[in-house]
């Protein structure tokens, strides 16, 4: 049986202000109904004024998703009554969206993007104990892009992979934080099953607030439809809501309850014109996208695919890596240090990537790589540097952590060890070679671990 999935994604744009007024677009965690003004509250007589930055971010996203951007698009009113929608309509885009005909490649499969359009977010209902709800309109008017895919996704796992890939792209181009738990990235899915090339009856699944939920909910619905079809039942065209705690999808509304949104052109806004010059300017301002970066790294750095995947996951990490490699061009070593130690340290509460510049980090990696400080010391320095204001160089120098490679100095200390451990020396000379380890240990404790172990072994064997 063939599964067909299409996604409808809403992404909040990281603009300073809302889509049609001067209120902050950063509404999260604010006291209810404090992040509002007459315009976003839809008070009588107010009018929307389009935020140009939101258009720019929308175009960035559309370009990153390989879309075509028509020269003209327009806004429309989507009419429905709901307490979190103060005007009684949402300003959206209907038949002339911002962008069309894009695609995103996921694990070698091309998922086509039907359209990308701009619209305003609604508020939130907070269901209270007792028989009522409160309305919080802080979020009303926050700019969104809606991204609609073609039904090209074949499995729930691929839907999840698509969402992860999309989030990565949106974060790379810095238009969306991509936080599904906070609702800054939301996903609704349409899914249908069929035995042949005809599309089956689809159902819509909503309320999936994590990547895991996208996968789980679609697996649930896939199984449910499969069972129904196998038992000769008809799949009804319904909308379901995912409950992540119970891991089940529940009926929200049937087809009969579907809205007629009565879209018509928004008369308060003039059509949106995006000329070629602006489009090109935005295109040129786009950073290197994840796929391009991966390809280049494989060529330039010869890193294993796994390393590339991990290090390009977010742009900040990728940039940090590249800047470090520019200072110390040993990509695999830098990669190892980042994937093991930096990632470990970053989980500590006080850790900040900004505490250590790539140049300083490169210095430390090189020091360890050259054997000038031992690996364990380097790890300690790294942890301290990322969790404090001190640079690795300061820490290494202040504490005199560099290895002692000065043969004279090592010899001096070895003489002391030989004098102080006559019994052991005797044992060694009688053929017990294991004792050498003990003697080196003694040397290390005298030098606080800084003696170059290879040199120490060499000199010690000579002396004995």
């Amino acid at each position, binding site marked *: 049986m063939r599964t067909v999935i299409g996604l409808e994604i809403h992404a909040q744009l990281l603009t300073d202000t809302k889509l049609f007024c001067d209120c902050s677009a950063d509404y999260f965690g604010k006291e209810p109904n404090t992040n509002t003004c*007459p315009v976003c*509250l*839809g*008070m*009588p*007589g*107010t*009018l*929307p*004024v*389009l935020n140009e930055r939101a258009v720019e971010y929308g175009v960035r996203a559309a370009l990153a998703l390989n879309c075509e951007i028509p020269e003209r698009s327009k806004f429309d*009113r989507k*009419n429905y*009554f709901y*307490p979190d929608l*103060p*005007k*009684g*309509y949402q300003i959206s885009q209907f038949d002339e969206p911002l962008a069309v005909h894009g695609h995103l490649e996921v694990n070698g499969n091309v998922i086509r993007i039907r359209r990308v359009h701009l619209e305003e977010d609604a508020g939130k209902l907070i269901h209270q104990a007792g028989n009522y709800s409160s*309305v919080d309109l802080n979020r009303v008017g926050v700019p969104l892009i809606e991204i609609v895919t073609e039904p090209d996704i074949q499995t729930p796992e691929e839907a999840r992979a698509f969402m992860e890939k999309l989030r990565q792209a949106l974060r790379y181009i810095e238009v969306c934080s991509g936080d599904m738990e906070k609702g800054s990235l939301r996903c609704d899915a349409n899914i249908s099953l069929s035995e042949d090339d005809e599309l089956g009856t689809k159902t819509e699944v909503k309320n999936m607030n994590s990547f895991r939920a996208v996968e789980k909910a679609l697996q649930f619905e896939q199984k449910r439809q499969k069972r129904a079809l196998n038992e000769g039942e008809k799949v009804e065209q319904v909308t379901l809501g995912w409950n992540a705690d119970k891991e089940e999808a529940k009926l929200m509304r049937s087809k009969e309850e579907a809205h*007629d949104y*009565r*879209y*018509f052109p928004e*008369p*308060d*806004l*003039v059509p949106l014109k995006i000329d070629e010059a602006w489009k090109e300017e935005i295109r040129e301002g786009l950073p290197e996208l994840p796929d391009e970066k991966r390809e280049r790294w494989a060529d330039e750095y010869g890193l294993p695919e796994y390393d590339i995947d991990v290090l390009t996951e977010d742009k900040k990490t990728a940039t940090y890596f590249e800047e470090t490699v520019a200072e110390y061009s040993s990509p695999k070593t830098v990669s190892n240090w980042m994937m093991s130690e930096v990632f470990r340290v970053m989980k500590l509460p006080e850790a900040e990537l900004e505490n250590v510049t790539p140049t300083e980090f490169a210095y430390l990696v090189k020091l360890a790589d050259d054997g000038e400080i031992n690996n364990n010391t380097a790890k300690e320095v790294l942890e301290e540097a990322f969790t404090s204001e001190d640079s690795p160089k300061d820490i290494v120098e202040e504490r005199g952590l560099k290895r002692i490679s000065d043969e004279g100095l090592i010899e001096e200390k070895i003489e002391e060890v030989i004098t102080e451990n006559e019994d052991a020396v005797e044992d060694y000379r009688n053929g017990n070679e294991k004792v050498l380890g003990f003697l080196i240990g003694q040397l290390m404790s005298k030098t606080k671990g800084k003696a170059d172990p290879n040199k120490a072994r060499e000199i010690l064997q000579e002396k004995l």
Partner: protein
Amino acid sequence: MHELIDLLEEDPGKIEDLIDSLYDSIEKTDGEVQAYLETADKEPLLAEAREKAERPLKGVPGTIKDNIQTLGFKTTCASRFLEDYDSVYDATVIKLLNEAGSPVLGKVNMDEFAMGSSTENSYFQTTRNPNDLTRVPGGSSGGSAAAVAADEAIYALGSDTGGSVRHPAAFCGVVGLKPTYGLVSRYGLTAFASSLDQIGPITKDVYDAALLLNVIAEQDEMDSTSAANPAVDYSDGIDRGVEGLKVGFPEEYFGDELDERIQDKAERWKETFEDIGAEIVDISLPHTEYAIATYYLISSSEASANLARFDGVRYTSRADTESIDELFSKSRDEGFGAEVKRRILLGTYALSAGYYDEYYGKAQKARRLIKGDFDDAFAEIDLIAAPTSPTPAFKIGEKIEDPLEMYLSDVFIVPINLAGIPAMSIPAGEVQGLPVGMQLMGESLSEELILRAGYAFENAFTG
């Protein structure tokens, strides 16, 4: 108003007499005329007027239609829904008037949400025509026109979606100007039909209309549809006359529906134009017959969305109900009057899936044809003159039970809004003691020409 401004220029102390006389006249006549819904307290208004004595309008106060947001006043739109709604900000026009030295005297009656042609659709009161108290003042800015005609206001602002400034101006015998769509900011005008709405002045004479347009015509960053201000001084050069101007009289505006007495008057209008050196040209606006249907489809469709915000959730009156759907429907059932409901239903229907192309879509096409008529006409002539209304003021109650009949009285005024062009109604004679209005129309942003021609006509016309 312009005489008063001159007077106050010489003697600013006269502002007290002026304001006294306004309050006297409101007290004396508004009991019968019923124009005002709310007036400012006299002492604070006088203090405000004195403060503004140095500004261009010298503290002369204005009277505002009750769908324009005005701090310190309610903005009820003459609806039960907004009976207790206090304005939370000033409309751009109110800001501009304040800056120019004109405080607000009061808010006046209208058809509920500006839907109507008689001011009978107010939830609060029925305004009467000061020329004959048994007749309507026209609408929907009936309160604005009646207040000016009854000397209860120096000037008033109205709003004109399908003739709502010009129609009552004609019925009451005053001047009413609907500017080009976008010339005056709509920010703060409670929306009826966003692609048609425009605020305009209602005044005693053409010169006053020019003075007010100087103040309120300004591009506004709060209104994306507002036009670049052509920076014209509308009063300067208003007396330059109309020598050589071609004035078109459209045959479609002189058909059977036109009152014969007004038909006769129109002959006098032509003579007057010829007397002042204009040339009369017979023209045709062939798609005029589609204007009423087109207008009611487009305006009602937009209204159905614009009025959706009145849902009982936030600032409006709320019905006591158990469920949210009931809250919406019952609040709206109780809050809106019959005419408003009729238009919301019409608009909702016209936008519905399966009917959109047939109604809203077709209306948009017809709108382009109607606009095309005017474009064609203005390629040949400078201005168009026609009656504002097919009849003089009708009796209170005469048409209120027959919506279609009421809609048809808008036949000469709605095409102008559909085309987005400016038009001005000026007093042009009387029939049996009732004023008749003549409408001058021009191409987009031709207010300067319309005002100049209106001024010349006003001075030359002898009834």
